């Protein structure tokens, strides 16, 4: 079970990081969301994985750790606020620059060394 859980977190992180490194705002937002799923699961699992141990007093014999749960509960809500904020930031970027590139308006972006070298090669 632990291995499966770890693989899930790994997959979420990998996909999230890959999308985080894209050039357009929308994939970046999706990537951030995936990463925050992974982080939430990770923090939650610091109380270890328990089955049927919900921390409701009187409902079971042994309880799982309630503290990570409380932390993650607020983290989910704050994560939502962050996602909403970043989404709106990207919408504002779209409105101001008529483009959804993370580096701003076309033609005003910093030069990329890779592209430059390709141009030079073609010359």
């Amino acid at each position, binding site marked *: 079970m*632990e291995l499966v*859980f*770890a693989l*899930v977190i*790994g*997959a*979420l992180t*990998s996909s999230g*990081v*890959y999308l*985080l*490194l*894209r*050039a357009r705002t*929308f*994939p*970046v*937002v*999706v*990537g951030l*969301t*995936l990463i925050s*799923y992974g982080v*939430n*699961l*990770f923090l*939650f*699992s610091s109380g*270890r*994985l*328990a*089955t*049927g*141990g919900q*921390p*409701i007093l009187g409902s079971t014999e042994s309880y*799982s750790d*309630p*503290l990570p749960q*409380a932390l*993650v*509960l607020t983290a989910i*809500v*704050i994560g939502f*606020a962050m996602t*909403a904020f970043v*989404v*709106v*930031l990207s*919408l504002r970027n*779209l*409105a101001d620059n008529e483009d*959804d590139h*993370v*580096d701003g308006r076309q033609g005003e972006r*910093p*030069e*990329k060394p*890779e592209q430059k070298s*390709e141009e030079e090669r073609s010359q």
Partner: protein
Amino acid sequence: MSLPLVVLLPFLGAIAAPLFAQGGRTAIAIASSVPALIALAALYPNWQVLADGGYVLYHQEWLPALGISLSFRLDGLALLFALLILVIGLLIILYARYYLKPKENIAKFYALLLCFKGSMLGIVMSSNLLLMLIFWEITSLVSFLLISYWTHKQDARRGARMALAVTGGGGLALLAGILIIGNIVGSFELDDVLAAGDQIKAHAMYPVALTLVLLGAFTKSAQFPFHFWLPHAMQAPTPVSAYLHSATMVKAGVFLLARLYPALAGTEQWFYMVSFTGMATLLIGAYIAMFKHDLKGLLAYSTVSHLGLITLLFGMGTQLAAVAAVFHVINHATFKASLFMAAGIIDHETGTRDMRRINGLWRYMPHTATLAMVAASSMAGVPLLNGFLSKEMFFAESLELNLPGLWAWLPPIVATLAGIFAVAYSARFIHDVFFNGKPVDLPVYPPHEPPRYMKIPVEILVFACVMVGMFPAISVGPLLYSAASATLGGDVPDYKLAVVHGLNLPLLMSFVAFFGGLLMYTQRQRFFDFHARFKEIDEKAVFEAVVSRLATFSHDLTGRIENGSLQRYALLLVLSVIAVAAAPLMNVGIFVGELGLSPVDLPTAIAAGVLIVCALLTAFLHRERFYALVLLSVVGLIVALAFARFSAPDLAMTQLSVEVVTIVLLMLALFYMPSWTPLESTRGQRGRDALIALVAGVGMTLVTLAMLTQPFSSISDFFLENSKTGGGGTNVVNVILVDFRGFDTLGEITVLAIAALGIYAMLKDTALTPPPGDGMGHPWTRDAHPMMLRQIARPMLPLALMISAFIFLRGHNLPGGGFIAGLITSVALILQYIASGMVWTQERIGIKYHNVIGLGLLFAIIAGAGSLAFSYPFLTSTFGYITWPVVGKFEVASALVFDLGVYLTVIGATLLALVSIGRLSPHSAIKPKKEGV
């Protein structure tokens, strides 16, 4: 109590004096003199204590945790410096009254001068090393402002900047040194530090502390190789040069040597570092002084040389040398300040300071000439003047140094050589300026005597030179004794203050120096020719070049790292996280702890498989944005299931409702955005990113695996035990949120509120036109608000609200609570917006969500503050039970009010964010075709 007053008075004066600027230069000069006069009167009653070798202490705690206290100490050494600062300060005030032109900003000048006086008094009278450092830094800053007083001159600005860079840098070193000393001793109080001399010197960190402290002292006192700032500081008005850069501030460094003498001196490191630095400075300063054609330049290098002499004396480490050093501090201050003032008068009356043009002034200003000649003779070390006495003591001490073999000859030879140079440049000051033919092409011609009162300060100082020179025992004897006693910690050697000690070797050295110097002056043309062969280094140009090179370098470096590409920043961020985490992870490897792995059941395995596949597909298919979004929602739902599977019902409910809101939000955003991502990156870039992503994912997998299989101990037992008894609820997660960690939750809903308001502000004046179709040629549906959806959504609302009320109320004991209930209510309301449109829904809701957020925060704070009224800490909750007629026994906790605040804030923030986005589109104004049903 008088001690802090003495330090404080000049600062108060700096505020008060400018008020008198309207009354003219005389009025402000008189007003500026008052603090010094009161300070002198306040110091006088303490004299008797000090004369007996005692000291006066004032102690007031300030920041005891940091070891900083407002403690002041007046002993002989502090008194000597305080008198120099106060008396010469008074003379400078009088002098500056005539020196500054009427149209210059005299109020600023006097205010700065008084600030400087206060901070300088602070340095010499502080009994706490950190307090002293604060005043030390103030003198650097005020010195910067005074050097650049004529702000229109580029040289003045550059000179000021250089002085600040050097002395400020030294101040930092000094701070580090003081912190080390304080760490060794365990206190920053001077009494403790001076008493712990042996402990400091035996400590392993002593060489480091000593080097740092000496760096501070040497930069401040312009010792080689940091001497270069002082000549460039001469761009200041002459009263400043006379006061700061000859009599007081540059003496702060040697004062520090004297102050910490019992704590730091007496070791080999001290001897070599201090005495050789002093020797080099003494010789280099005296040598360069000869070749300066600028009057103030000559005096500046002479000052460097004399500061080197004092440093060398302290470095010798013998008690007599320390006495001679203290004595020379007095003597140098008197003759050098008067010489600077004389130079200022000459500059003032002739319009130039170039000695090649100023000649034969004796005919025009005999009075000033006499005064300057006496002072210059004292500088040269002519008998019957004070400079002679301390120089004689210096020669005597240079013979006493115990250096091995031929090295023993070095100090007396250096001393005599420096003496020869000193006589030569003094002779030049006298002969070249006042005799030597006629003036050449003076800007102001003919020069004449300055105003009567401008000469008074010079007269007083020259009189002091003569008095000390002829009757040393009577004039400065007691003061010197008390200062030497304070320097040496009460251990004063036998010394005799007399004009002539009989025919001995030091006297012979004086003769050699005197006649050698005169000879050198007569042959000066040869030396000038010799010196002209070397290219002169302009320190200012070097300094400016170094500064601009550093600036260019950092600019380039910043430009290279921070090129404006956010995509690249993200890459650097991820790479640095990986780099930081890599090393510890290498050691862990694939680690399975002692808890081992538990078996996997089939449904969990299937769900996990679906999650992993969907997560990876999200990345693979991300260019088709809509598909990516659908896959993302699947991932989010399975995460919610995972929470439910692993005993976290509250989290599952939260995740589920947040998931709905998030997807709606992203759908809304996607409505305005292009629905697919163009292919921009090269194959190589994608491969690189995939590799980075893979490394990050593998790393997280290993960390998670290692953590999950490790046993652990938690503080949660406390929460489990006290949740019911202390918080009145059985849902421990909720009790933690609203009670145990209520303050955290308050902070979190505040963040939520700020984010929502930020969203509102960002989109307030923004208009976005959505693309006409979905990017693949399909137009949007014309039926924006389908009837089916409308008909289903409307009856859902009361049901959903009822459920959310139920979830909210039971939250304290069963899964639920403010966060979840708030999200459910939000989802229910958002459904209405989607189904029936912005205008229709808003008309019926009629609430501004800003107010809901505000109300929510208010509830939360009131619930917390309520406990203050019963003198419990903020957010202490209480609870009780009441029986309602139908419902039965019902628990009421004050935390419920807090949870209500959470509930309202969540609703307000969520809806404000979504409605702000929804409002962007012109379509939002479309009303459903049929009103109501």
